[in-house]
């Protein structure tokens, strides 16, 4: 799907229009996905690259972003619980980034007005790493980080 068309669709009401088009049979589900999945951002390997792909500048460290139900040590890297709450006013989205994963960006969550800027999910971590909670609020980016240690489990083989 070419970029211009994507931008036009986005400009013309974002997902609502896309969903209408999909419902009308104009788009296959794959097109909806392609339009709405930021491949460039998910391919990035550094914070700078990720920020560029997301269209933002350098994020500002913020004490208004907190991790909850997120352990310092994960017993298994295949499932690492991550909870993030943002108290930054006008939070629009929350993203989870893992510094030492093959690709840095794990997930982004757009938070519409009326939804609490607080969520929890589970991610994979290949090794001990810093995990970043990146918040977009009123067009600006803020960040908090936490180191999570990943341990080797069981009989190790």
């Amino acid at each position, binding site marked *: 799907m070419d970029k211009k068309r994507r931008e036009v669709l986005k400009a013309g009401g974002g997902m609502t229009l896309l969903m209408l088009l999909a419902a009308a049979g104009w788009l296959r589900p794959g097109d909806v996905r392609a339009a709405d999945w930021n491949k460039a951002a998910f391919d990035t390997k550094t914070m700078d690259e990720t920020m560029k792909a997301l269209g933002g500048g350098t994020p500002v460290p913020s004490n208004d972003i907190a991790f909850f139900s997120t352990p310092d040590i994960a017993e298994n890297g295949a*499932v690492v619980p991550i909870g993030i709450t943002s108290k930054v006013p006008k939070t629009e989205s929350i993203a989870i980034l893992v510094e030492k994963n093959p*690709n840095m960006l794990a*997930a982004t969550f757009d938070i519409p007005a009326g939804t609490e800027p607080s969520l929890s999910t589970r991610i994979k971590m290949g090794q001990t790493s810093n995990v970043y909670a990146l918040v977009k609020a009123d067009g600006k980016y803020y960040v908090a980080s936490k180191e999570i240690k990943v341990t080797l489990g069981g009989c190790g083989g």
Partner: protein
Amino acid sequence: MADPMKIRANVVGDSTEVKVLMNHEMETGQRKDAQGKIIPGWFIQNVKVTHNDKVVLDAQWGPAVAKNPFLSFKFKGGAKGEKVRITWTDNRNDTRTDEATIA
């Protein structure tokens, strides 16, 4: 075909708390099989949660989200008996939509 999600939606104070478990391999595309061949990536890319046709959460995921994904969040409003609807779409264009009644 993809298996159903397990969705719980409960009124907590003046909000609705949504907890969902999804059935998905979330294969990273980084792992190798026994023969040393890369196992192709297979993962959910988009998750959309709606309540009364209003989007309450819109997520994009990469393969670093854990297998059989779990997600929990809250949105303002929502009343017992109303529906919460969740749709995911993966990188193979497979998609699944499930609904839960707010309790």
